[in-house]
Structure formats: structure tokens, C-alpha cells
């Protein structure tokens, strides 16, 4: 229409929102208050969720940029592509990235030997072992594997392989094989027979062959029996020797040791010059698993070497070579290595060396000194020291001590072999042959005396034939107490000594295991605690975000209600408009007589409507209040109980110590500390689990409540949508 344009006639523009709002307010229609500051308690969690949230985007390769662009457009800006999972914990990523479980990391952190050798590819094989098995490093193949790997570096020495292979003491098959090989090559058929028989057969054989020893000292076996009671996992006893070996436990090695025991005892008995050396190898054998194996193999090796006609001391040194690079200090070196790799091993070696009364006493000091620097950085070295110290004093009988001292003195001059031998033998029954041999031994390898720990080995290696004979004699004269060299009392004394020594070493070993288990427990409790705390944090975060969502839901509900009200208003207006838009000739005159009643009705309607709205509003607010109170309650409770814990712990310290008394043996400060930590951690874990449960319950309730509200919102939205649509159609019908 040209006229319209000409006259510039057009309807006025729409009102701006604010003006519209004002007008509506004048009309008495509920409006949204833009100036109202909502108190959002969990607003921070909204930000948190926004920061942590990640929108998943799927894009074919090469098209990620478009998806990313879209996302950035959507978000406005800065959502970094690598948003994390909401509840992701560093632990999880750790678990995924490397197979070490978190326990391993912490254990290595705590226990790992920082002063370790460079050659250690796997930083701490023994510490890793408990992850994969059930914290029993002895029953673990991984550990032996790692061990072998570590050992592999030194493989120039053929004897290394024997200990490594024999370290697989889990495998029954390996053991006898190596024994056979080592001895079979040496041509010691008797020896082989004896050992293999011992290895492959039940210990009955021991009892039969080792008649004197067994008759006098069934002690070692008793001690084995006793050891079964220790926390070590031991399979059913069954046959004595085999079960020990089968277990893959130190017991298996113990059986091997017992073979050596019998060997040595036979030597000692026949020669008569070797009671104390005979005793010593027991200690060597008995101290620790791998070490035992080593000593076993050392025995074997030495014997083979002598058969080859090599200087026994040289062989001793070579055999000690496998232990470490220190060629002179055979066992020292090995102890070093063990010290680097595992503290348990170091301690065991130290006990070994200390318990051998021969020239190794000097080495003993060195060995004891050695593991400390190696282990020193770790907090547990002190334990070892402490634990080792008492056994030394406790173990050594006066005799032994004296002999050790004598040897200390005597070792300096290597030529004093005779004296040594004499002093060496507490029973003072000296077999001249052996003495001479011993002397010559010293003369030959005088410098290496310190390195040669196993005097019995020396003896054995020194005169293999004699040893053979002795073995023969031992084998065939089994059960005969009086071999002609010793009196019964002496034997008894010897046995008692041996027995005690063995028991002491068993105790040492068990102590090692106790400590190791305890360390593992501490580490695992620590990890559990850490994970529990993370779970709690995640739970609290979840709850907080739920709270934020609850507030947002409340916002949505309020707006929906407003929409409802305004829609109702619009409906009224539409009706009015429709009424007014009828033909101009139609008369709308209401009945004047009922005007009062109509007015009253209208007022009532408005009133009820208003009340309904109020009620609805109150319901909404109630929902919000309930949910926020629930969440705050859970939060406050958590905080409260966290604060409580520290107070409670102070009072429970002594109680915890008392409770843990029965798990402790010769406890020192650190032991107590460990026990306390375990107790504390367990306590905390318990508390956290309780709180977690409450958190979970609160979360469940909250989610339920929100579910209801969401359902209501859904219905309201549907209704509103329908109403609006209806209004729209009504409007379109107005012409």
C-alpha cells in the first residue's frame, strides 16, 4: 500500500525486555527479577565441573580440526582439548601407564635402595616382586627372574649361573639338576649321590644318614617344624625335606641346607678338626634362602674346582666372584649385591658372615659395614642393623665367640694355621691330616682367607678324596654316634651348638620376613589409604557438583514456574482479545445483576491462583533446601570426622602398640613406628570407608531427589509447551 509507506505508517516496535517487564509488573504479573542475587553455595563446583568436563567429540581422522572448531565456537573459548576425567586420580594413570601398581611405586619410594649399583636395570627387583605375587617374595618367580637378570651381568663367571639357577628354588626340578651337575662334573659321585638323594628324597634319608646328628640334634628339624608356625606361607608339611623344597619358600632351601649340614657334619665328625667349621657352614647354610643356595652352590663349586686341581682358595674367590665384583671379599661382595638388591638379603648375608667364626669375622665387620652404606639411604637399614645386632650377641655362644675372636687374631698371620685349627676346634680333637691341610690352605691362600668364608668348604675342597671318604663314612656309618674321634658329650655339645645357631638363624630369617611383611603391609596400607582418600575426594566432588546441579535445577524450576504464570496471563489476554475481536456490532454486555458475584469469583480465582503459585514456589525452595542441606551435612560430617581423627589417634597410640605386641618381635622404635602407622592407616581407612558409605548414601538420596525434580520439570515443560502451542494457535485464529 503506497499510502502506508507515504504516510510512514507502521505499528510501533516491540517493547524492550525491561520496559515489557515493567509493564507486566504494573499489571501484577509475576516476572523474573534480574537484580536478584542468588546465593549459590556450590557455584565453585560448577566452575570445577566446567573446567574438568570434557565434551566428547567424534571425528574421522583428519577432520578433528572441524570438530574442534565447532566445539570452540560452542564453548566460546578455552576448553582445552585434553580435559581430564572428572574423578581421575594420578593413581589410575599410573596404573595404566606402567604395570607397577601404586603399591610398587610407593614401596620402591620408601624402601628402594638409593645407593644401588648402576648395573641394576630393574631398580628394585625384590620390592617389585610383592606386587605381582601376594607379598611373598620368596614364593615369587618374578623375583627370581629379576634376580637372574641382575645376575646376568656378571656372567663371565660360570659359577654365577649356578646360584642364579638355584635361586629358582621354587622349581623342584632345577635344584637337583644343578646339584647333580655341579657335583657330577666334579666327579664326586658320593657327594652327588648324597645330595641328590637328599634333594630328591624325603628327609628320612637325612635321619638315616645323619644318624649321629639326628639322634643328638633332631633340633634343626624341630626348628623347621617350629618355623612352619611362622607367618610364612608353608604348604602342608608332608614329607619333611621335599615339602620344604616344594614350597618355593625358604624351607625348600632349608632342605638343601640340611643336606649341606649333613655333609658338613659328616666332615666335621670324621676329621674331628672341624667341629666349629662344621658348625659354621650350618650357619652359612641356614641364614637365608638365596644365600643358602649360594652357599650350597659354593660348596659344590669348590668341590668341583678342587677336583679340577685348582687352588681351593682361588676357587673360593672365584665362587665369591659371582657374588660381586669384589673378588677378595667373596661373601662381602655378595652381601653387597644383596644389600643393593634387597635388604633382607643383606642382612642374611651379614648374619652368615658373622656366624662363621673363621677368618670371616673380619669380613663380617666389613659386611656389616657394607650393607649399611648401601641401604643407608633407606629408613630400614637401621632396622636391619638393630635386628642383626641382637642375633649376633644372642646367637654366638661363648665358645663360638671366643673362637671367633681367636680367629680374628689368628687371621692376621696367615701362617698360624695350626693354632687356628686348634683353637678352631672347641673339642680340641684335632685330626692331623686336616690340620695339615688347613695349614697348607692358609699358607696357600693366606691372603684370601678373609674371602674364604666357608672353612668347611675349604676342607671339602681341599681334600676331596678325604671328604669323599668322610662322606662315605658318614653315609655308611650312619647312625653310629661314636666315630672314634669324639666323645658323646662333645657331639652333644656340638649338636646343641649347631642347633642353637640354626635356631638363631631361623629366628633371624623369620625376623627378616616379619620385617619385610611389615614393610609391605605399611606400604599397602599407605596405598589403600591414599586410594581411599582419593575416592573420598572424588565422592565429595561428585556430591558438590550434584549440589551445584541442584541449584541449577532450582533455577530451572523457578523459571518454569514463571513461564507457567506468564503463560496463564497470556492465555487470559488471548481470551480477552478474542472476545474483543468479535464483530463490532456484537454487544458485550455482561449481566449487570451478577456483576458483584462475578467480581468476587474472579478475586477468589486470583487468590487461589496466587496461593497455588506460592505453594509451588515453596515446594521448589524446599527441594533445593533439602538437597543442599543433605550435601552440606555430608560435607560437614566428613570435615568433622577428619578433625576428630587426629585427636582420637593421640589417645589410641598406646593401645595400638599394645595390640600390635603380638605381631612384633624384638621391636624397636622404627618397628613401633611401623606398627603405629599400620594401625593409624587402618584406622583412617576404616573411618574413610564409613564416610564413603555416608557419602554414597547422600549421593544416592540426592540423585533420587533430583530425579523427582527432574521428572516434575519434565512434566511441567511438557504442559507448558502444550499450553503455549494452544495459545499460539488461538492467537493465529484472531483476525
Amino acid at each position: 500500500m503506497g499510502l502506508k509507506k507515504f504516510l510512514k505508517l507502521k505499528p510501533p516496535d516491540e517493547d524492550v525486555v525491561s520496559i515489557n517487564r515493567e509493564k507486566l509488573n504494573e499489571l501484577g504479573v509475576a516476572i523474573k527479577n534480574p537484580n536478584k542475587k542468588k546465593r549459590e553455595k556450590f557455584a565453585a563446583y560448577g566452575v570445577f565441573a566446567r573446567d574438568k568436563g570434557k565434551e566428547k567429540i567424534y571425528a574421522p581422522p583428519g577432520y578433528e580440526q572441524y570438530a574442534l572448531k565447532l566445539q570452540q565456537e560452542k564453548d566460546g573459548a578455552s576448553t582445552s582439548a585434553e580435559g581430564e576425567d572428572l574423578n581421575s586420580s594420578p593413581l589410575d594413570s599410573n596404573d595404566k601407564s606402567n604395570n607397577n601398581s601404586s603399591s610398587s611405586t610407593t614401596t620402591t619410594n620408601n624402601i628402594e635402595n638409593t645407593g644401588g649399583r648402576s648395573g641394576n636395570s630393574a631398580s628394585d627387583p625384590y620390592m617389585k616382586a610383592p606386587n605381582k605375587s601376594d607379598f611373598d617374595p620368596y614364593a615369587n618367580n618374578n623375583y627370581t627372574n629379576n634376580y637372574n637378570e641382575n645376575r646376568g651381568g656378571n656372567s663371565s663367571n660360570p659359577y654365577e649361573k649356578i646360584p642364579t639357577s638355584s635361586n629358582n628354588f621354587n622349581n623342584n626340578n632345577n635344584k637337583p639338576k644343578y646339584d647333580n651337575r655341579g657335583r657330577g662334573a666334579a666327579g664326586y659321585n658320593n657327594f652327588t649321590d648324597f645330595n641328590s638323594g637328599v634333594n630328591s628324597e624325603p628327609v628320612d634319608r637325612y635321619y638315616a644318614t645323619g644318624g649321629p646328628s639326628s639322634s643328638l640334634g633332631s633340633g634343626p628339624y624341630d626348628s623347621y617344624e617350629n618355623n612352619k608356625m611362622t607367618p610364612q606361607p608353608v604348604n602342608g608339611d608332608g614329607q619333611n625335606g621335599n615339602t620344604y623344597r616344594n614350597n618355593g619358600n625358604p624351607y625348600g632351601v632349608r632342605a638343601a641346607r640340611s643336606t649341606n649340614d649333613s655333609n658338613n657334619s659328616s666332615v666335621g665328625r670324621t676329621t674331628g678338626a672341624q667341629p666349629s667349621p662344621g658348625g659354621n657352614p650350618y650357619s652359612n647354610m641356614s641364614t637365608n634362602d638365596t644365600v643358602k643356595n649360594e652357599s650350597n652352590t659354593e660348596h659344590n663349586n669348590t668341590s668341583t674346582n678342587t677336583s679340577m686341581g685348582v687352588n681351593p682358595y682361588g676357587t673360593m674367590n672365584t665362587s665369591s666372584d659371582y657374588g660381586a665384583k669384589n673378588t677378595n671379599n667373596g661373601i662381602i661382595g655378595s652381601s653387597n649385591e644383596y644389600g643393593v638388591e634387597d635388604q633382607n638379603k643383606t642382612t642374611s648375608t651379614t648374619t652368615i658372615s658373622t656366624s662363621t667364626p673363621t677368618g670371616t669375622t673380619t669380613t663380617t665387620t666389613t659386611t656389616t659395614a657394607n650393607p649399611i652404606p648401601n641401604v643407608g639411604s633407606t629408613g630400614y637399614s637401621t632396622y636391619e642393623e638393630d635386628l642383626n645386632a641382637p642375633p649376633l650377641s644372642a646367637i654366638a655362644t661363648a665358645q663360638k665367640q671366643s673362637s671367633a675372636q681367636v680367629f680374628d687374631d689368628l687371621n692376621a698371620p696367615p701362617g698360624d694355621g695350626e693354632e687356628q685349627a686348634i683353637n678352631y676346634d672347641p673339642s680340641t680333637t684335632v685330626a692331623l691330616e686336616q690340620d695339615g691341610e688347613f695349614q697348607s690352605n692358609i699358607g696357600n691362600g693366606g691372603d684370601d682367607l678373609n674371602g674364604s668364608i666357608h672353612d668347611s668348604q675349604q676342607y671339602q675342597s681341599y681334600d676331596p678324596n678325604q671328604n669323599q671318604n668322610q662322606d662315605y663314612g658318614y653315609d655308611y656309618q650312619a647312625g653310629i654316634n661314636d666315630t672314634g674321634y669324639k666323645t658323646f658329650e662333645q657331639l652333644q655339645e656340638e649338636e646343641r651348638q649347631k642347633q642353637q645357631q640354626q635356631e638363631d638363624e631361623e629366628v633371624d630369617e623369620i625376623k627378616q620376613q616379619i620385617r619385610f611383611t611389615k614393610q609391605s603391609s605399611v606400604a599397602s596400607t599407605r596405598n589403600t589409604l591414599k586410594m581411599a582418600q582419593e575416592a573420598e575426594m572424588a565422592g565429595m566432588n561428585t556430591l558438590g557438583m550434584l549440589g551445584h546441579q541442584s541449584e541449577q535445577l532450582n533455577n530451572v524450576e523457578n523459571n518454569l514456574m514463571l513461564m507457567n504464570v506468564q503463560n496463564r496471563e497470556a492465555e487470559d489476554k488471548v481470551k480477552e482479545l478474542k472476545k474483543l475481536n468479535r464483530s463490532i456490532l456484537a454487544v458485550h454486555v455482561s449481566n449487570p445483576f451478577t456483576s458483584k458475584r462475578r467480581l468476587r469469583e474472579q478475586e477468589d480465582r486470583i487468590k487461589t491462583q496466587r496461593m497455588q503459585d506460592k505453594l509451588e514456589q515453596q515446594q521448589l525452595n524446599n527441594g533445593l533446601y533439602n538437597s543442599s542441606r543433605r550435601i552440606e551435612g555430608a560435607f560437614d560430617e566428613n570435615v568433622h570426622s577428619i578433625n576428630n581423627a587426629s585427636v582420637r589417634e593421640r589417645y589410641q597410640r598406646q593401645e595400638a602398640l599394645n595390640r600390635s605386641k603380638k605381631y612384633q618381635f624384638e621391636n624397636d622404635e622404627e618397628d613401633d613406628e611401623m606398627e603405629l602407622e599400620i594401625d593409624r592407616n587402618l584406622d583412617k581407612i576404616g573411618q574413610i570407608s564409613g564416610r564413603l558409605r555416608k557419602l554414597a548414601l547422600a549421593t544416592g538420596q540426592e540423585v533420587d531427589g533430583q530425579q523427582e525434580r527432574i521428572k516434575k520439570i519434565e512434566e511441567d515443560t511438557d504442559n507448558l509447551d502444550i499450553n503455549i502451542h494452544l495459545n499460539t494457535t488461538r492467537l493465529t485464529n484472531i483476525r
Partner: protein
Amino acid sequence: MSSSVPYDPYIPPAEEENSQSKAAALKAEIDDTVGIMRDNINKVAERGERLTSIEDKADNLAVSAQGFKRGANRVRKQMWWKDLKMKMCLVLVVIILLVVIVVPIAVHFA
């Protein structure tokens, strides 16, 4: 420091039972928690579905509200035009009336 209590490898059965029950209680609690959380996860998943549907409905609502707004606007303009027309008509009528009244008088006096 040595323990005053002799080392006892055997855990007393009562104690064991106690600790066992404690551990069992803890485990039960944790299992319970895990169960609750499983439920929660299900609920949250359901809630997520509902939220998605709500989002859908809110979109629909926005569209229909927009339609209502447009319709209302259209009606407003329409009414304004109607109003204008009515006013024009009234003005016209008044003018005609005036003409009808004034013209005879003017003619009469002229």
C-alpha cells in the same frame, strides 16, 4: 627395646575372630558402599537420560515460545492496524458528519 609380651606367632583365636570380624565388617561396609554407588551410577545414568530429554523439551518449549512471541507480535501489529483503521474510520465518520452538518448550514446561510 624388647617386647614385654613374648612373641607369639599364633594369633589368638578370639583376637583373630575380632580382627576378622572387624575386617569383615569393613569389607561389608565397603561392599555396601560399592552397591550403593552402583545404584547411584544407574540412577545418574537414568538422570542423564532424563536430562537429555529435558533438554529436548526445553528446546521445543523455546521454539513454541518463540512461535507464540511471533504470533503475539503479529497479532499486536494486526490489532494496531485495526486500531488505526478504526480510528481513520471514526475520523472519516466525524468529518462526514461535520460535512453533513456544516454543508447544509453553509448552504442555508449562503
